[in-house]
Protein backbone atom coordinates (compact mmCIF):
# COMPACT_ATOMS: atom_id res chain seq x y z
CA UNK A 1 0.00 0.00 0.00
CA UNK A 2 1.64 3.19 -1.13
CA UNK A 3 0.51 6.70 -0.40
CA UNK A 4 1.65 9.93 -1.97
CA UNK A 5 2.90 12.97 -0.17
CA UNK A 6 -0.46 14.69 0.06
CA UNK A 7 -1.87 11.71 1.96
CA UNK A 8 0.84 11.98 4.59
CA UNK A 9 0.45 15.75 4.83
CA UNK A 10 -3.28 15.44 5.25
CA UNK A 11 -3.08 12.74 7.90
CA UNK A 12 -0.31 14.56 9.74
CA UNK A 13 -2.51 17.64 9.91
CA UNK A 14 -5.42 15.54 11.15
CA UNK A 15 -3.20 13.98 13.78
CA UNK A 16 -1.90 17.38 14.87
CA UNK A 17 -5.39 18.75 15.15
CA UNK A 18 -6.50 15.86 17.38
CA UNK A 19 -3.31 16.17 19.39
CA UNK A 20 -3.82 19.87 20.03
CA UNK A 21 -7.40 19.38 21.16
CA UNK A 22 -6.29 16.66 23.57
CA UNK A 23 -3.40 18.82 24.71
CA UNK A 24 -5.76 21.61 25.75
CA UNK A 25 -7.69 19.12 27.85
CA UNK A 26 -4.86 17.09 29.26
CA UNK A 27 -2.60 19.95 30.31
CA UNK A 28 -5.17 21.19 32.79
CA UNK A 29 -5.83 17.72 34.14
CA UNK A 30 -2.19 16.76 34.40
CA UNK A 31 -1.01 19.94 36.15
CA UNK A 32 -3.95 19.74 38.56
CA UNK A 33 -2.91 16.21 39.34
CA UNK A 34 0.77 16.98 39.57
CA UNK A 35 0.23 19.92 41.88
CA UNK A 36 -2.72 18.80 43.94
CA UNK A 37 -2.60 15.00 43.58
CA UNK A 38 -6.21 15.33 42.66
CA UNK A 39 -7.86 13.08 40.11
CA UNK A 40 -10.59 15.02 38.41
CA UNK A 41 -12.64 12.65 36.27
CA UNK A 42 -15.16 15.44 35.76
CA UNK A 43 -12.68 17.26 33.52
CA UNK A 44 -14.45 15.81 30.48
CA UNK A 45 -17.77 17.09 31.78
CA UNK A 46 -16.26 20.60 32.00
CA UNK A 47 -15.21 20.25 28.37
CA UNK A 48 -18.78 19.36 27.42
CA UNK A 49 -20.01 22.33 29.45
CA UNK A 50 -17.62 24.59 27.52
CA UNK A 51 -19.02 23.29 24.25
CA UNK A 52 -22.59 23.94 25.38
CA UNK A 53 -21.87 27.45 26.60
CA UNK A 54 -20.03 28.20 23.38
CA UNK A 55 -22.84 26.85 21.20
CA UNK A 56 -25.44 28.92 23.04
CA UNK A 57 -23.40 32.11 23.02
CA UNK A 58 -22.34 31.68 19.40
CA UNK A 59 -25.97 31.46 18.34
CA UNK A 60 -26.54 35.06 19.46
CA UNK A 61 -23.19 36.79 19.80
CA UNK A 62 -21.03 34.99 17.26
CA UNK A 63 -18.08 32.64 17.40
CA UNK A 64 -15.37 34.95 18.71
CA UNK A 65 -17.39 36.05 21.71
CA UNK A 66 -18.26 32.41 22.35
CA UNK A 67 -14.69 31.16 22.58
CA UNK A 68 -13.94 33.92 25.09
CA UNK A 69 -17.08 33.48 27.16
CA UNK A 70 -16.97 29.65 27.32
CA UNK A 71 -13.60 29.37 29.13
CA UNK A 72 -14.62 32.11 31.56
CA UNK A 73 -17.95 30.40 32.25
CA UNK A 74 -16.31 27.04 32.81
CA UNK A 75 -13.67 28.62 35.04
CA UNK A 76 -16.50 30.09 37.15
CA UNK A 77 -18.02 26.62 37.46
CA UNK A 78 -14.54 25.50 38.45
CA UNK A 79 -14.47 28.11 41.22
CA UNK A 80 -17.75 26.76 42.59
CA UNK A 81 -16.53 23.16 42.37
CA UNK A 82 -13.27 24.05 44.05
CA UNK A 83 -14.95 25.80 46.95
CA UNK A 84 -17.69 23.22 47.34
CA UNK A 85 -16.01 19.90 46.75
CA UNK A 86 -12.45 19.77 45.69
CA UNK A 87 -10.91 21.69 48.54
CA UNK A 88 -12.51 19.26 50.98
CA UNK A 89 -11.44 16.20 49.01
CA UNK A 90 -7.79 17.22 48.73
CA UNK A 91 -6.59 15.06 51.60
CA UNK A 92 -8.63 11.99 50.65
CA UNK A 93 -7.16 9.06 48.79
CA UNK A 94 -7.35 8.68 45.03
CA UNK A 95 -10.35 6.39 45.27
CA UNK A 96 -12.54 8.86 47.11
CA UNK A 97 -11.57 11.52 44.56
CA UNK A 98 -12.30 9.25 41.64
CA UNK A 99 -15.71 8.51 43.13
CA UNK A 100 -16.66 12.08 43.96
CA UNK A 101 -15.71 13.23 40.49
CA UNK A 102 -17.50 10.22 39.05
CA UNK A 103 -20.60 11.40 40.89
CA UNK A 104 -19.91 14.84 39.51
CA UNK A 105 -19.90 13.42 35.97
CA UNK A 106 -23.36 11.97 36.60
CA UNK A 107 -24.61 15.26 38.02
CA UNK A 108 -23.11 17.54 35.36
CA UNK A 109 -24.28 15.22 32.58
CA UNK A 110 -27.88 15.49 33.72
CA UNK A 111 -27.60 19.21 34.45
CA UNK A 112 -26.54 19.86 30.86
CA UNK A 113 -29.47 17.71 29.74
CA UNK A 114 -31.85 19.72 31.92
CA UNK A 115 -30.55 23.06 30.63
CA UNK A 116 -29.95 22.25 26.98
CA UNK A 117 -32.06 19.14 26.31
CA UNK A 118 -31.10 15.80 24.80
CA UNK A 119 -30.81 16.94 21.21
CA UNK A 120 -27.42 17.62 19.73
CA UNK A 121 -26.59 21.28 19.21
CA UNK A 122 -24.66 22.50 16.22
CA UNK A 123 -22.25 25.41 16.17
CA UNK A 124 -21.25 27.06 12.90
CA UNK A 125 -17.63 27.76 12.07
CA UNK A 126 -16.96 31.49 11.85
CA UNK A 127 -17.08 32.89 8.29
CA UNK A 128 -13.42 33.89 8.39
CA UNK A 129 -12.39 30.29 9.03
CA UNK A 130 -14.97 28.36 7.05
CA UNK A 131 -12.94 28.04 3.84
CA UNK A 132 -10.22 25.69 2.74
CA UNK A 133 -6.54 26.52 2.74
CA UNK A 134 -3.98 25.11 0.31
CA UNK A 135 -1.03 23.81 2.24
CA UNK A 136 1.79 21.72 0.74
CA UNK A 137 -0.45 20.61 -2.08
CA UNK A 138 -3.46 19.64 0.00
CA UNK A 139 -6.60 21.60 0.58
CA UNK A 140 -7.30 21.65 4.30
CA UNK A 141 -10.17 23.24 6.27
CA UNK A 142 -9.03 26.56 7.70
CA UNK A 143 -10.86 25.92 10.96
CA UNK A 144 -8.80 22.81 11.69
CA UNK A 145 -5.62 24.75 11.00
CA UNK A 146 -6.90 27.34 13.46
CA UNK A 147 -7.20 24.65 16.14
CA UNK A 148 -3.64 23.52 15.46
CA UNK A 149 -2.40 27.11 15.66
CA UNK A 150 -4.38 27.84 18.81
CA UNK A 151 -3.10 24.70 20.49
CA UNK A 152 0.46 25.50 19.50
CA UNK A 153 0.09 29.09 20.75
CA UNK A 154 -1.25 27.96 24.12
CA UNK A 155 1.43 25.32 24.34
CA UNK A 156 4.10 27.96 23.75
CA UNK A 157 2.51 30.36 26.21
CA UNK A 158 2.28 27.71 28.92
CA UNK A 159 5.80 26.51 28.30
CA UNK A 160 7.07 30.09 28.61
CA UNK A 161 4.95 30.80 31.67
CA UNK A 162 6.07 27.63 33.42
CA UNK A 163 9.76 28.00 32.66
CA UNK A 164 10.28 31.78 32.66
CA UNK A 165 7.85 33.45 35.05
CA UNK A 166 7.80 33.55 38.81
CA UNK A 167 4.37 31.92 38.99
CA UNK A 168 5.69 29.16 36.75
CA UNK A 169 8.61 28.60 39.07
CA UNK A 170 6.23 28.48 42.02
CA UNK A 171 4.07 25.91 40.26
CA UNK A 172 7.10 23.79 39.44
CA UNK A 173 8.21 24.02 43.04
CA UNK A 174 4.74 23.02 44.21
CA UNK A 175 4.66 19.99 41.92
CA UNK A 176 8.10 18.96 43.07
CA UNK A 177 7.51 19.25 46.80
CA UNK A 178 4.46 21.13 47.98
CA UNK A 179 5.32 21.00 51.68
CA UNK A 180 8.75 22.47 51.08
CA UNK A 181 7.31 25.11 48.73
CA UNK A 182 4.85 26.12 51.45
CA UNK A 183 7.72 26.37 53.95
CA UNK A 184 9.51 28.74 51.60
CA UNK A 185 6.60 31.13 51.77
CA UNK A 186 4.66 30.18 48.67
CA UNK A 187 0.93 30.27 49.19
CA UNK A 188 0.40 26.79 47.81
CA UNK A 189 -3.34 26.80 48.46
CA UNK A 190 -3.84 29.90 46.33
CA UNK A 191 -1.58 28.43 43.68
CA UNK A 192 -3.74 25.30 43.60
CA UNK A 193 -6.81 27.41 43.18
CA UNK A 194 -5.36 29.43 40.30
CA UNK A 195 -4.07 26.33 38.54
CA UNK A 196 -7.40 24.59 38.96
CA UNK A 197 -9.27 27.53 37.43
CA UNK A 198 -6.83 27.81 34.54
CA UNK A 199 -7.18 24.07 33.94
CA UNK A 200 -10.97 24.41 33.91
CA UNK A 201 -10.78 27.39 31.53
CA UNK A 202 -8.58 25.39 29.14
CA UNK A 203 -11.07 22.52 29.26
CA UNK A 204 -13.83 25.00 28.44
CA UNK A 205 -11.75 26.43 25.60
CA UNK A 206 -11.17 22.93 24.23
CA UNK A 207 -14.91 22.31 24.32
CA UNK A 208 -15.62 25.62 22.60
CA UNK A 209 -13.20 25.05 19.74
CA UNK A 210 -14.28 21.43 19.36
CA UNK A 211 -17.97 22.34 19.18
CA UNK A 212 -18.02 23.35 15.47
CA UNK A 213 -16.21 20.11 14.53
CA UNK A 214 -18.40 17.71 16.47
CA UNK A 215 -22.03 17.90 17.36
CA UNK A 216 -22.55 19.06 20.93
CA UNK A 217 -24.12 16.22 22.91
CA UNK A 218 -24.35 15.48 26.64
CA UNK A 219 -22.17 12.40 26.14
CA UNK A 220 -19.25 14.24 24.55
CA UNK A 221 -17.55 14.71 27.90
CA UNK A 222 -17.52 11.00 28.58
CA UNK A 223 -16.24 10.28 25.08
CA UNK A 224 -13.24 12.58 25.43
CA UNK A 225 -12.43 11.58 29.02
CA UNK A 226 -10.79 8.26 28.22
CA UNK A 227 -8.47 9.67 25.51
CA UNK A 228 -7.49 12.47 27.88
CA UNK A 229 -6.70 10.04 30.67
CA UNK A 230 -4.68 7.91 28.26
CA UNK A 231 -2.72 10.99 27.22
CA UNK A 232 -1.77 11.95 30.75
CA UNK A 233 -0.98 8.42 31.84
CA UNK A 234 1.23 7.76 28.81
CA UNK A 235 2.89 11.14 29.21
CA UNK A 236 3.34 10.89 32.95
CA UNK A 237 1.29 12.85 35.42
CA UNK A 238 2.10 16.42 36.26
CA UNK A 239 4.41 17.52 33.50
CA UNK A 240 3.93 19.78 30.50
CA UNK A 241 6.37 17.65 28.53
CA UNK A 242 4.32 14.57 29.35
CA UNK A 243 1.10 16.20 28.21
CA UNK A 244 2.71 17.28 24.93
CA UNK A 245 4.28 13.88 24.29
CA UNK A 246 1.12 12.04 25.31
CA UNK A 247 -1.15 14.13 23.08
CA UNK A 248 1.14 13.79 20.09
CA UNK A 249 1.49 10.04 20.59
CA UNK A 250 -2.26 9.62 20.97
CA UNK A 251 -3.08 11.87 18.00
CA UNK A 252 -0.65 10.19 15.64
CA UNK A 253 -1.29 6.61 16.72
CA UNK A 254 -5.04 7.11 16.52
CA UNK A 255 -5.06 8.94 13.18
CA UNK A 256 -2.49 6.83 11.36
CA UNK A 257 -3.79 3.66 12.98
CA UNK A 258 -7.26 4.40 11.63
CA UNK A 259 -6.05 4.82 8.03
CA UNK A 260 -3.20 2.30 7.90
CA UNK A 261 -4.53 -0.55 10.04
CA UNK A 262 -8.26 -0.02 10.56
CA UNK A 263 -8.80 -3.42 12.20
CA UNK A 264 -6.17 -2.76 14.82
CA UNK A 265 -6.75 0.96 15.30
CA UNK A 266 -9.16 0.80 18.20
CA UNK A 267 -7.06 -1.63 20.22
CA UNK A 268 -3.69 -0.12 19.29
CA UNK A 269 -3.78 2.86 21.62
CA UNK A 270 -4.87 0.79 24.61
CA UNK A 271 -2.17 -1.77 23.89
CA UNK A 272 0.33 1.08 23.76
CA UNK A 273 -0.91 2.40 27.08
CA UNK A 274 -0.65 -1.04 28.66
CA UNK A 275 2.89 -1.40 27.26
CA UNK A 276 3.92 1.98 28.67
CA UNK A 277 2.51 1.13 32.08
CA UNK A 278 4.30 -2.20 32.15
CA UNK A 279 7.65 -0.77 31.12
CA UNK A 280 7.43 2.59 32.88
CA UNK A 281 4.61 2.39 35.44
CA UNK A 282 4.62 6.17 35.98
CA UNK A 283 4.53 7.23 32.33
CA UNK A 284 7.15 8.60 29.98
CA UNK A 285 7.90 12.01 31.50
CA UNK A 286 6.60 12.08 35.07
CA UNK A 287 6.99 15.33 36.98
CA UNK A 288 8.79 13.48 39.74
CA UNK A 289 11.36 10.76 39.24
Amino acid at each position, binding site marked *: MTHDLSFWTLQTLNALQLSMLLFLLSIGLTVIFGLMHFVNLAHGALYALGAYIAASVAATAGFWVAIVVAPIGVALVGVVLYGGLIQR*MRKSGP*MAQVLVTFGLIFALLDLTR*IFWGDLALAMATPPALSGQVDLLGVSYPAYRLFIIALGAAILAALALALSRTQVGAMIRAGVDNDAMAACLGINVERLFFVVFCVGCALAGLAGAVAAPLLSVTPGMGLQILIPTL*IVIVIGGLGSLKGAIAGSLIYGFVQTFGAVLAPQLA*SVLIYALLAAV*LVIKPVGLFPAKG
Partner: protein
Amino acid sequence: MFRHTPLRYAVLAILAIAALMQAFTAGYFGLEILIEILILCLLVLALDLVAGFGGMVSLCHGALMGVGAYAFVALNALAGLDPWLAALGAVAITAAVAWVIGAVCARSHGIYFIMATLAFGQMGYSYVFSAPLFGGDDGIGGIDRFDLTALGIDLSDSRTFALFCLAVLAAAYLFTVAILRSGLGRSLAGVMHNEKRMKALGLITWRVKADVFGLSGVIAGVAGVLAAQHIQFISPGLMNWTVSGEALVVVILGGLGTLVGPLVGAAAFVVMKHQLGEITTYWHLIVGVILIAVVMSRANGIFGWVEARWGARIERRLSDATRASTPKEVSTDA
Protein backbone atom coordinates in the same frame (compact mmCIF):
# COMPACT_ATOMS: atom_id res chain seq x y z
CA MET B 1 -9.33 -10.62 57.65
CA PHE B 2 -12.97 -11.08 56.88
CA ARG B 3 -15.20 -11.85 59.83
CA HIS B 4 -18.91 -12.51 60.01
CA THR B 5 -20.35 -10.33 62.74
CA PRO B 6 -23.88 -10.96 63.98
CA LEU B 7 -24.94 -7.82 62.15
CA ARG B 8 -23.56 -9.20 58.89
CA TYR B 9 -25.38 -12.51 59.42
CA ALA B 10 -28.57 -10.62 60.14
CA VAL B 11 -28.31 -8.47 57.02
CA LEU B 12 -27.47 -11.52 54.89
CA ALA B 13 -30.51 -13.32 56.26
CA ILE B 14 -32.74 -10.32 55.57
CA LEU B 15 -31.37 -10.05 52.02
CA ALA B 16 -31.88 -13.76 51.39
CA ILE B 17 -35.43 -13.70 52.72
CA ALA B 18 -36.25 -10.57 50.72
CA ALA B 19 -34.83 -12.14 47.55
CA LEU B 20 -36.80 -15.36 48.09
CA MET B 21 -40.01 -13.48 48.81
CA GLN B 22 -39.49 -11.36 45.74
CA ALA B 23 -38.74 -14.47 43.66
CA PHE B 24 -41.96 -16.19 44.69
CA THR B 25 -44.35 -13.26 44.74
CA ALA B 26 -43.21 -10.78 42.09
CA GLY B 27 -44.60 -10.48 38.61
CA TYR B 28 -42.56 -10.56 35.43
CA PHE B 29 -41.12 -7.06 35.79
CA GLY B 30 -40.25 -7.57 39.45
CA LEU B 31 -38.45 -10.80 38.56
CA GLU B 32 -36.43 -9.06 35.87
CA ILE B 33 -35.33 -6.46 38.41
CA LEU B 34 -34.46 -9.22 40.88
CA ILE B 35 -32.30 -11.00 38.30
CA GLU B 36 -30.62 -7.72 37.44
CA ILE B 37 -29.83 -7.20 41.13
CA LEU B 38 -28.50 -10.74 41.53
CA ILE B 39 -26.16 -10.42 38.55
CA LEU B 40 -24.93 -7.02 39.75
CA CYS B 41 -24.39 -8.64 43.17
CA LEU B 42 -22.05 -11.18 41.58
CA LEU B 43 -20.10 -8.41 39.87
CA VAL B 44 -19.73 -6.28 42.99
CA LEU B 45 -18.75 -9.35 45.01
CA ALA B 46 -15.90 -9.88 42.56
CA LEU B 47 -14.98 -6.20 42.75
CA ASP B 48 -15.12 -6.02 46.54
CA LEU B 49 -12.79 -9.01 46.74
CA VAL B 50 -10.02 -7.14 44.91
CA ALA B 51 -10.82 -3.54 45.88
CA GLY B 52 -11.96 -3.97 49.47
CA PHE B 53 -9.56 -6.70 50.57
CA GLY B 54 -6.63 -6.19 48.22
CA GLY B 55 -6.66 -2.44 47.67
CA MET B 56 -6.82 -3.06 43.91
CA VAL B 57 -9.43 -0.59 42.71
CA SER B 58 -10.29 -2.05 39.35
CA LEU B 59 -12.08 -0.27 36.55
CA CYS B 60 -12.07 -3.34 34.32
CA HIS B 61 -14.53 -5.59 36.12
CA GLY B 62 -17.38 -4.65 33.82
CA ALA B 63 -15.14 -5.63 30.94
CA LEU B 64 -14.27 -8.91 32.67
CA MET B 65 -17.97 -9.64 32.97
CA GLY B 66 -18.19 -8.85 29.26
CA VAL B 67 -15.34 -11.26 28.54
CA GLY B 68 -17.32 -13.95 30.33
CA ALA B 69 -20.45 -13.14 28.34
CA TYR B 70 -18.70 -12.95 24.99
CA ALA B 71 -16.62 -16.07 25.63
CA PHE B 72 -19.79 -17.94 26.55
CA VAL B 73 -21.51 -16.82 23.35
CA ALA B 74 -18.44 -17.61 21.26
CA LEU B 75 -18.16 -21.11 22.67
CA ASN B 76 -21.88 -21.82 22.73
CA ALA B 77 -23.40 -20.17 19.69
CA LEU B 78 -20.37 -19.89 17.40
CA ALA B 79 -18.40 -23.02 18.29
CA GLY B 80 -21.49 -25.09 19.07
CA LEU B 81 -20.45 -26.32 22.52
CA ASP B 82 -22.95 -27.50 25.11
CA PRO B 83 -24.03 -24.53 27.31
CA TRP B 84 -22.50 -26.06 30.45
CA LEU B 85 -19.18 -26.74 28.76
CA ALA B 86 -19.30 -23.28 27.18
CA ALA B 87 -19.96 -21.67 30.56
CA LEU B 88 -17.08 -23.58 32.11
CA GLY B 89 -14.81 -22.49 29.28
CA ALA B 90 -16.01 -18.90 29.51
CA VAL B 91 -15.33 -18.74 33.24
CA ALA B 92 -11.88 -20.26 32.72
CA ILE B 93 -11.10 -17.73 29.96
CA THR B 94 -12.27 -14.82 32.12
CA ALA B 95 -10.18 -16.04 35.03
CA ALA B 96 -7.13 -16.34 32.78
CA VAL B 97 -7.65 -12.84 31.36
CA ALA B 98 -8.14 -11.45 34.85
CA TRP B 99 -5.01 -13.21 36.09
CA VAL B 100 -2.93 -11.69 33.29
CA ILE B 101 -4.37 -8.19 33.94
CA GLY B 102 -3.71 -8.61 37.65
CA ALA B 103 -0.15 -9.78 37.01
CA VAL B 104 0.60 -6.91 34.63
CA CYS B 105 -0.96 -4.24 36.85
CA ALA B 106 0.43 -5.60 40.12
CA ARG B 107 3.36 -3.19 40.07
CA SER B 108 1.13 -0.13 39.70
CA HIS B 109 -0.50 1.52 42.67
CA GLY B 110 -3.15 4.09 43.40
CA ILE B 111 -4.33 6.08 40.45
CA TYR B 112 -2.00 4.23 38.07
CA PHE B 113 -3.64 0.93 38.94
CA ILE B 114 -7.05 2.43 38.28
CA MET B 115 -5.88 3.82 34.94
CA ALA B 116 -4.11 0.62 33.90
CA THR B 117 -7.18 -1.52 34.58
CA LEU B 118 -9.29 1.08 32.80
CA ALA B 119 -7.00 0.75 29.78
CA PHE B 120 -7.33 -3.02 29.69
CA GLY B 121 -11.09 -2.81 30.04
CA GLN B 122 -11.40 -0.28 27.25
CA MET B 123 -9.10 -2.38 25.10
CA GLY B 124 -11.57 -5.23 25.33
CA TYR B 125 -14.49 -2.88 24.74
CA SER B 126 -13.06 -1.37 21.58
CA TYR B 127 -12.04 -4.81 20.35
CA VAL B 128 -15.54 -6.30 20.52
CA PHE B 129 -17.01 -3.01 19.33
CA SER B 130 -15.15 -3.32 16.03
CA ALA B 131 -14.90 -7.11 15.73
CA PRO B 132 -17.27 -8.45 13.06
CA LEU B 133 -17.00 -11.96 14.58
CA PHE B 134 -18.92 -10.76 17.64
CA GLY B 135 -21.46 -8.69 15.76
CA GLY B 136 -19.62 -5.41 16.35
CA ASP B 137 -21.73 -2.71 17.91
CA ASP B 138 -24.93 -4.58 16.95
CA GLY B 139 -24.23 -7.31 19.48
CA ILE B 140 -25.35 -10.94 19.27
CA GLY B 141 -28.76 -12.31 20.12
CA GLY B 142 -30.34 -15.75 20.43
CA ILE B 143 -28.33 -17.02 23.41
CA ASP B 144 -29.44 -20.24 25.10
CA ARG B 145 -29.99 -20.58 28.80
CA PHE B 146 -28.79 -23.70 30.61
CA ASP B 147 -30.85 -26.79 29.93
CA LEU B 148 -32.00 -28.34 33.21
CA THR B 149 -35.13 -30.01 31.89
CA ALA B 150 -33.58 -33.39 32.80
CA LEU B 151 -33.99 -32.32 36.43
CA GLY B 152 -37.46 -31.01 35.76
CA ILE B 153 -36.29 -27.39 35.94
CA ASP B 154 -37.17 -24.99 33.17
CA LEU B 155 -34.82 -22.01 33.22
CA SER B 156 -36.64 -20.17 30.44
CA ASP B 157 -39.15 -19.29 33.15
CA SER B 158 -38.15 -16.01 34.83
CA ARG B 159 -38.98 -17.24 38.32
CA THR B 160 -36.87 -20.36 37.98
CA PHE B 161 -34.01 -18.38 36.45
CA ALA B 162 -34.15 -15.88 39.32
CA LEU B 163 -33.93 -18.71 41.86
CA PHE B 164 -31.09 -20.25 39.89
CA CYS B 165 -29.21 -16.91 39.95
CA LEU B 166 -29.83 -16.65 43.69
CA ALA B 167 -28.34 -20.11 44.21
CA VAL B 168 -25.32 -19.15 42.10
CA LEU B 169 -24.91 -15.94 44.10
CA ALA B 170 -25.02 -17.85 47.37
CA ALA B 171 -22.34 -20.21 46.07
CA ALA B 172 -20.24 -17.27 44.88
CA TYR B 173 -20.56 -15.60 48.28
CA LEU B 174 -19.34 -18.74 50.05
CA PHE B 175 -16.54 -19.01 47.49
CA THR B 176 -15.44 -15.42 48.21
CA VAL B 177 -15.53 -15.97 51.96
CA ALA B 178 -13.51 -19.17 51.52
CA ILE B 179 -10.88 -17.26 49.50
CA LEU B 180 -10.66 -14.57 52.15
CA ARG B 181 -10.25 -17.12 54.92
CA SER B 182 -7.61 -19.14 53.06
CA GLY B 183 -3.89 -18.54 53.27
CA LEU B 184 -4.14 -16.58 50.04
CA GLY B 185 -6.75 -14.25 51.53
CA ARG B 186 -4.59 -13.64 54.60
CA SER B 187 -1.57 -12.93 52.41
CA LEU B 188 -3.73 -10.51 50.45
CA ALA B 189 -4.69 -8.66 53.61
CA GLY B 190 -1.01 -8.38 54.44
CA VAL B 191 -0.18 -7.08 50.97
CA MET B 192 -2.90 -4.46 51.23
CA HIS B 193 -1.67 -3.17 54.56
CA ASN B 194 2.04 -3.29 53.96
CA GLU B 195 3.28 -4.65 50.66
CA LYS B 196 6.95 -3.91 51.40
CA ARG B 197 6.88 -5.90 54.61
CA MET B 198 5.17 -8.84 52.94
CA LYS B 199 7.86 -8.75 50.28
CA ALA B 200 10.55 -8.68 52.94
CA LEU B 201 8.92 -11.69 54.57
CA GLY B 202 9.52 -13.58 51.35
CA LEU B 203 6.09 -13.40 49.80
CA ILE B 204 5.90 -13.02 46.04
CA THR B 205 3.37 -10.20 46.24
CA TRP B 206 2.60 -9.83 42.56
CA ARG B 207 1.53 -13.44 42.44
CA VAL B 208 -0.82 -13.03 45.40
CA LYS B 209 -2.42 -10.05 43.67
CA ALA B 210 -2.64 -11.85 40.32
CA ASP B 211 -4.11 -14.99 41.90
CA VAL B 212 -6.81 -13.05 43.73
CA PHE B 213 -7.53 -11.03 40.61
CA GLY B 214 -7.89 -14.29 38.70
CA LEU B 215 -10.26 -15.71 41.30
CA SER B 216 -12.22 -12.49 41.18
CA GLY B 217 -12.33 -13.04 37.42
CA VAL B 218 -14.01 -16.40 38.06
CA ILE B 219 -16.91 -14.64 39.77
CA ALA B 220 -17.01 -11.88 37.13
CA GLY B 221 -17.05 -14.58 34.46
CA VAL B 222 -19.98 -16.32 36.12
CA ALA B 223 -21.75 -12.95 36.24
CA GLY B 224 -21.06 -12.54 32.53
CA VAL B 225 -22.45 -15.97 31.63
CA LEU B 226 -25.62 -15.27 33.62
CA ALA B 227 -25.93 -11.76 32.15
CA ALA B 228 -25.71 -13.20 28.64
CA GLN B 229 -28.33 -15.84 29.45
CA HIS B 230 -30.56 -13.37 31.21
CA ILE B 231 -31.30 -10.99 28.34
CA GLN B 232 -30.21 -13.61 25.78
CA PHE B 233 -28.49 -10.80 23.95
CA ILE B 234 -25.10 -9.18 24.40
CA SER B 235 -23.64 -5.97 23.06
CA PRO B 236 -20.36 -4.16 23.62
CA GLY B 237 -22.19 -1.77 25.98
CA LEU B 238 -21.78 -4.51 28.60
CA MET B 239 -18.00 -3.93 28.56
CA ASN B 240 -17.95 -0.13 28.60
CA TRP B 241 -16.01 1.43 31.45
CA THR B 242 -19.14 3.05 32.83
CA VAL B 243 -20.35 -0.45 33.82
CA SER B 244 -17.19 -0.88 35.89
CA GLY B 245 -17.61 2.63 37.22
CA GLU B 246 -21.17 1.90 38.30
CA ALA B 247 -20.06 -1.34 39.94
CA LEU B 248 -17.45 0.63 41.86
CA VAL B 249 -20.11 3.15 42.85
CA VAL B 250 -22.26 0.29 44.17
CA VAL B 251 -19.37 -1.14 46.16
CA ILE B 252 -18.67 2.26 47.69
CA LEU B 253 -22.31 3.10 48.35
CA GLY B 254 -22.71 -0.27 50.02
CA GLY B 255 -19.50 -0.36 52.02
CA LEU B 256 -16.08 -1.28 50.70
CA GLY B 257 -14.48 -4.37 52.17
CA THR B 258 -17.59 -5.65 53.93
CA LEU B 259 -18.88 -8.09 51.25
CA VAL B 260 -22.37 -7.72 52.71
CA GLY B 261 -22.49 -3.97 52.09
CA PRO B 262 -21.98 -4.16 48.33
CA LEU B 263 -24.87 -6.63 48.12
CA VAL B 264 -27.08 -4.12 49.93
CA GLY B 265 -25.68 -1.43 47.62
CA ALA B 266 -26.50 -3.46 44.51
CA ALA B 267 -30.09 -3.96 45.58
CA ALA B 268 -30.43 -0.29 46.53
CA PHE B 269 -28.81 0.89 43.29
CA VAL B 270 -30.98 -1.16 40.93
CA VAL B 271 -34.19 -0.40 42.80
CA MET B 272 -33.28 3.29 42.95
CA LYS B 273 -32.46 3.28 39.24
CA HIS B 274 -35.84 1.83 38.33
CA GLN B 275 -37.87 3.83 40.82
CA LEU B 276 -36.21 7.14 39.97
CA GLY B 277 -36.21 6.21 36.30
CA GLU B 278 -39.99 6.09 36.46
CA ILE B 279 -40.28 9.51 38.08
CA THR B 280 -37.59 11.36 36.19
CA THR B 281 -35.21 10.72 33.32
CA TYR B 282 -32.56 12.59 35.26
CA TRP B 283 -31.98 9.86 37.83
CA HIS B 284 -28.22 10.03 37.21
CA LEU B 285 -28.24 13.46 38.80
CA ILE B 286 -29.77 12.09 42.00
CA VAL B 287 -27.43 9.09 42.07
CA GLY B 288 -24.50 11.44 41.48
CA VAL B 289 -25.49 13.71 44.34
CA ILE B 290 -26.01 10.75 46.68
CA LEU B 291 -22.65 9.34 45.69
CA ILE B 292 -20.89 12.65 46.37
CA ALA B 293 -22.67 12.97 49.71
CA VAL B 294 -21.76 9.42 50.79
CA VAL B 295 -18.10 9.76 49.83
CA MET B 296 -17.80 13.21 51.41
CA SER B 297 -19.40 12.03 54.63
CA ARG B 298 -16.35 9.75 54.97
CA ALA B 299 -18.54 6.89 56.09
CA ASN B 300 -17.74 3.55 54.52
CA GLY B 301 -20.96 3.40 52.53
CA ILE B 302 -24.44 2.63 53.85
CA PHE B 303 -23.54 -0.65 55.48
CA GLY B 304 -20.23 0.65 56.79
CA TRP B 305 -22.09 3.52 58.41
CA VAL B 306 -24.62 1.22 60.05
CA GLU B 307 -21.83 -1.06 61.19
CA ALA B 308 -19.81 1.78 62.68
CA ARG B 309 -22.84 3.22 64.43
CA TRP B 310 -24.70 0.21 65.66
CA GLY B 311 -22.45 -2.78 65.00
CA ALA B 312 -20.72 -2.70 68.38
CA ARG B 313 -23.97 -2.10 70.23
CA ILE B 314 -25.77 -4.96 68.49
CA GLU B 315 -22.86 -7.25 69.07
CA ARG B 316 -22.77 -6.40 72.76
CA ARG B 317 -26.48 -6.94 73.12
CA LEU B 318 -26.31 -10.27 71.30
CA SER B 319 -23.39 -11.51 73.37
CA ASP B 320 -25.29 -10.51 76.52
CA ALA B 321 -28.27 -12.43 75.22
CA THR B 322 -26.23 -15.52 74.44
CA ARG B 323 -24.62 -15.42 77.88
CA ALA B 324 -28.04 -15.21 79.50
CA SER B 325 -29.62 -17.95 77.44
CA THR B 326 -28.96 -21.65 77.58
CA PRO B 327 -26.39 -23.19 75.21
CA LYS B 328 -29.11 -25.18 73.46
CA GLU B 329 -30.87 -22.07 72.21
CA VAL B 330 -27.59 -20.63 71.01
CA SER B 331 -26.91 -23.59 68.76
CA THR B 332 -30.32 -23.28 67.12
CA ASP B 333 -29.71 -19.55 66.72
CA ALA B 334 -26.47 -20.14 64.87
